[in-house]
């Protein structure tokens, strides 16, 4: 069997999936690079979960070629799934069990050779009470159980469908740490979300899906560089408005009393050079909104007929 390029954890070529008359995936081409964190973005119904379910062999493509860790998911079977950790978008647990029993059962079904200390650590870091019954768990707590289940075997590939939906900010921070640790150990993370802001801090690559097709792919760092970075400056003396307007890379300059707002494209060095010659009381440069960068991309893409 063609093992595919080893630098790719997942490749999809012309993958199509229909549900009756609906074409959920339309000749999808997708590449997930090994050892990186890839965010899979798109509005609800774009086909994110369908793609993910095909990678896990829960659903089968109607056409096209899928390779996960070099193997077709269906041919790979249990041996392939042993190397993957999965968090479903809609996690339904067996409500007759406690959290502890659920985790123990998954561990047995994974062959029982898991590191119990790591499972303990995951539960502790996520703040998961293992003695509770799964019945009546909040969706955030269910998500924690699912996250422990996905990470517990330290899999080569983590496939996480909307991992941070409904979890509180503290858990979100722990989640980001866990993902970064996985990447630092050379493992691959593929996670979906419907908003970029949820994944831009953790993802290295971003793939944007719309109506079953990939409409954009990018490196988050490049995107960050390309994105216009907003800034606000409060001057202690005269406002060098004209100088700022003439500075390369500086756009949308607006003056309001002693405050100037604008956006920088590319390096902020020319802006900083201008500011250095003036009395600056306060400077604010928030994280660029990559969502806007992508929206700009969308708007630049003509609508399909």
């Amino acid at each position, binding site marked *: 069997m063609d093992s595919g390029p080893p630098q790719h954890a997942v490749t999809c070529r012309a993958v199509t999936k229909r549900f009756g008359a609906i074409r959920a995936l339309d000749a999808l081409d997708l590449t997930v690079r090994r050892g990186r964190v890839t965010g899979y973005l798109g509005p609800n119904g774009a086909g994110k979960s369908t793609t993910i379910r095909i990678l896990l062999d*829960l659903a*089968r493509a109607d056409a096209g070629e899928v390779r996960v860790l070099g193997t077709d998911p269906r041919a790979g079977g*249990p041996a392939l799934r042993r190397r993957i950790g999965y968090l479903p978008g809609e996690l339904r647990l*067996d409500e007759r069990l406690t959290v502890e029993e659920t985790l123990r059962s998954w561990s*047995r*079904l*994974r*062959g029982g050779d898991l590191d119990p200390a790591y499972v303990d650590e995951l539960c502790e870091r996520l703040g998961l009470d293992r003695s509770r019954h799964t019945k009546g768990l909040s969706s955030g707590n269910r998500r924690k159980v699912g996250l422990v*289940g996905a990470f517990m075997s330290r899999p080569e590939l983590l496939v996480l469908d909307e991992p941070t939906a409904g979890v509180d900010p503290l858990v979100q921070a722990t989640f980001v740490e866990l993902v970064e640790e996985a990447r630092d150990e050379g493992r691959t993370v593929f996670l979906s979300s419907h908003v970029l802001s949820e994944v831009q801090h953790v993802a290295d690559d971003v793939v944007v899906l719309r109506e079953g097709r990939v409409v954009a792919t990018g490196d988050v760092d490049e995107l960050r560089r390309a994105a216009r970075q907003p800034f606000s400056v409060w001057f202690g003396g005269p406002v060098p408005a004209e100088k700022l307007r003439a500075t390369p890379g500086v756009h949308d300059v607006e003056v309001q009393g002693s405050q100037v707002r604008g956006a920088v494209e590319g390096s902020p060095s020319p802006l900083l050079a201008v500011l250095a010659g003036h009395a600056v009381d306060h400077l604010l440069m928030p994280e660029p909104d990559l969502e806007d960068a992508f929206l700009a991309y969308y708007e630049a893409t003509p609508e399909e007929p």
Partner: protein
Amino acid sequence: MSGSATVELVRRGLLALRRSVLWWTLGIAVLLLTTAGAWPSLEGSEALESFEEMGAILEAFGATDLASPSGYLDGQMYAFMLPLLLSGMAVASATGSTSGDEDAGRLELLHALPVARRTIWLSRFAATALAVLGVAAVAAAGMVALRPVFSLEEVGVGRIVVATLGAAIFALFCGAVGYAAGAAGASRGRAAGIAVLVVVASYVMAFIAPLADALAGIRSWSPWHWALGEQPVSTGISTGGALLIIALTAALVAAGTAAMEHRDIRSA
């Protein structure tokens, strides 16, 4: 197929069935007690013999010889009620633990684990089979224990065991119909409906249709008849019929499992 995964899945399957097993056992225990318990006061009563004059209607429930202990047990329990209750249990368990769990989205994560699909599904059916056979064993043991209390010693242990076994294999056949329909992609409601239809059709073919002379031959096409004959306690069951229905059960389970291997698992 991994051995420890299978053990874990069957164990989980049985745990999931424990509450319903309790209720079905309770129901069958009540039937057992009232049936056996009523015998001492009915034995030798003319009422039973006059019942026999109702002929056809009683025949429809497998009751042709109510005055003898064996005939009484056939008519009141083994020819109709016990197979019906065990079938109900088998259909409910087999569909609930497979297509029912799939409808609820509970199979999603299980199928993403390193376990073969067929291991998951076959383990679920195995749990149903163990539960049905367990309840049947309790029912048989109960009746054997109650015989001396209610002067039914005349009925041999072997006869009770065989009649109960007939009911259990018929029940598992019906459960396998529900399993196969769900495995092929039917929702739980539809799969259980198909199985119940098979139970009813088998019963009608075995007991109601033969009441009309022209339809007498239809009986030999009924799975109910293959598994249980007409009077399982009085006359025993046919080995050929039993083997046939066991083979059909195995074929249904195999065909359903194969169909499931080729389709998508439904998500919640």
